């Protein structure tokens, strides 16, 4: 088709809009937005537009569709200085641009320890061995003949927010909270597979192992393995993405993302934990007294306001606005989210919207009438077991600043009069 669209980056348009707003004050932004309306009317209405005259693409143009080019800045981002190398590294889900609770597959954050393994599904095998009656080997075809289940779960990296233990560092909820995604998994219960091999009575632990170059291993207690773990091959209805473990991964609902072993090739049953690298050197939480917690599996109740946020400033001036955010808990369902506009002095209970699923992201909204004054926005999640999300200072008082993992402290956004938003800590 004839290309007549503006190729300029959509992010630039909003950025320049914001700059205009910042230069002259928030109220002026609304003026910019309305400037198209002249006495004779808005030319976007009074003049016939290209897309109203010329034909668009046919149905054969995009066998696998991608987002509009005007959404080009809704992408995963990494922070190069965080790790030595992009292969054993992390990137971040653009939470600030998303809504609802489901993360689009192409935007789910990635964390690899040996890069993305590329495995032909016909070449993939899953072995069960150790303290079982019959050690077994499954093909992908075998696995798809077992009874199947679908569940929506969040997967949060244990290190999500880890850079913020010492204070405000990264400006944007993509970076401070974006090591999380939430998709619907399809697979077979781990329990079903273990029963097929027959767990011996002294089989108390299960060790999943990945097929990639890091050969990731973790120790999972049998109680959890038999409860809700899922061996999954689909996410949001389609095959797992390679970066999410194609063709097979483990889901360990509510527990730290490191345990969700990707490219899953083996499950060993044992009578003791293995104390492997990812549960000794890594994913142990150092306290101020020099001792360290091990086996900190559950991801505690947490929330963040995704808009407004540093990457999503207020560009419309005073008046009605939507405060939007996410809350989740590895313990179960979220029952309540409170929002403060004044740094935690006063709180209002927000509105939970959409499905409320156990160990899944929840969406919350608080609709306010902004008078253009400064705000210190916070959100505080509560789960069905009555656990409240603590402040960062409460966490530091209990743990010090060197735990690296499991930072679920309350986030503060400083909203300025011009609509700009900043990651801050408050006293």
């Amino acid at each position, binding site marked *: 088709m004839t290309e007549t669209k503006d190729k300029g980056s959509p*992010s630039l348009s909003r950025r320049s809009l*914001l700059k205009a707003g910042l230069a002259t004050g928030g109220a002026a932004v609304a003026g910019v937005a309305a400037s198209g309306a002249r006495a004779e009317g808005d030319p976007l209405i009074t003049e016939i537009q290209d897309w109203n005259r010329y034909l668009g693409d046919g149905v054969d143009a995009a066998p696998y569709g991608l987002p509009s080019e005007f959404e080009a*800045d809704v992408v995963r*981002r990494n922070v190069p200085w965080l790790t*030595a*190398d992009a*292969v054993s590294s992390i990137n971040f889900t653009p939470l*600030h641009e998303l809504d609802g609770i489901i993360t689009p597959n192409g935007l789910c954050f990635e964390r690899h320890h*040996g890069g993305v393994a590329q495995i032909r599904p016909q070449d993939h095998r899953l*072995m069960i*061995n150790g303290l079982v009656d*019959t*050690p*077994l080997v*499954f093909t992908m075809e075998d696995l798809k003949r077992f009874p199947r289940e679908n569940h929506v779960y969040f997967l949060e990296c244990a290190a999500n927010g880890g850079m913020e233990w010492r*204070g*405000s*560092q*990264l*400006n944007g909820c993509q970076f401070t909270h974006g090591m999380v995604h939430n998709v619907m998994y399809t697979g077979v219960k781990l329990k079903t597979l273990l029963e*097929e*091999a*027959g767990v011996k009575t002294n089989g108390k632990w299960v060790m999943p192992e990945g097929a990639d*170059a890091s*050969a990731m*291993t973790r120790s999972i207690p049998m109680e959890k393995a038999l409860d809700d773990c899922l061996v999954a091959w689909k996410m949001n209805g389609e095959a797992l993405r390679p970066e999410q473990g194609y063709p097979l991964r483990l889901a360990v609902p509510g527990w730290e993302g490191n345990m969700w072993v990707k490219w899953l090739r083996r499950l*060993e049953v044992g009578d*003791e934990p*293995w104390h*492997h*690298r990812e549960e*000794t*050197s890594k994913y*142990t939480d150092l306290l*101020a007294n*020099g*001792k*360290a*917690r*091990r086996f*900190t599996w*559950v991801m505690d109740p947490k929330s963040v306001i995704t808009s407004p946020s*540093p*990457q*999503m400033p207020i560009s419309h001036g005073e008046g009605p606005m939507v405060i939007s955010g996410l809350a989740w808990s590895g313990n179960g369902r979220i029952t309540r989210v*409170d929002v403060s506009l004044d740094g*935690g*002095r006063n709180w209002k209970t927000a509105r939970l919207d959409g499905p409320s699923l156990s160990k899944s992201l929840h969406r919350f909204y608080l609709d306010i009438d902004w008078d253009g004054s400064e705000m210190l926005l916070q959100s505080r999640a509560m789960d069905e077991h009555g*656990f*409240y999300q*603590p*402040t960062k200072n*409460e966490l530091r008082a*209990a743990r010090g600043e060197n735990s690296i993992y*499991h930072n679920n402290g309350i986030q503060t956004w400083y909203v300025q009069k*011009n609509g700009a938003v900043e*990651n*801050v800590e*408050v*006293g």
Partner: protein
Amino acid sequence: RESGIFKLGRVATQDEIAAWDIDVRPDGQGLPEGSGSVADGEVLFADNCAVCHGDFGEGVGRWPVLAGGHDSLKDDRPEKTIGSYWPYLSTVYDYVRRAMPFGNARSMSDDDVYALTAYLLYLNDVVTDEEFVLSKENFLEVRLPNEENFFMDDRSEEPHYASKSEPCMTNCKADEVKITMRARVLDVTPEDGGDDDA
């Protein structure tokens, strides 16, 4: 075949299990036959490891530091190494054999891994004799200094979780809420992070 409701899959052969089941536990389960010396380990380390980890395990650039950091765990900036932090030697053997060298995993023989493990003990002053030979037989005699300093997750006993009390909703802070720290001061967010050019 003894087990299974669905009778899906097939029985794994002993060779298949041996090929994939290479994991090692702190009690020595999984350790292969073999041995290696500090001196042999030093050569192997120089050829295969030092480009990232440094000749003495000190780490090059941002690559992991493997040695040193003794008594630093209470410091403002602790240095967590095999010698200062790791609880079990079995983890060293298992991880090196499973996943190192980075980009060429599974390329070391069992004897090589014993030698590298011996050298890492030497770099961390856990053994001081250059003639030391680590083997399956003496492996469990070696203990790492920080073994006793790990304990099970007890987060639910922290005050903010243990209380489970209804949180404050109004007039929760006596003093004015003040900003104590700002991310913009550090300015370490990537440039394309969003609309951050204020």
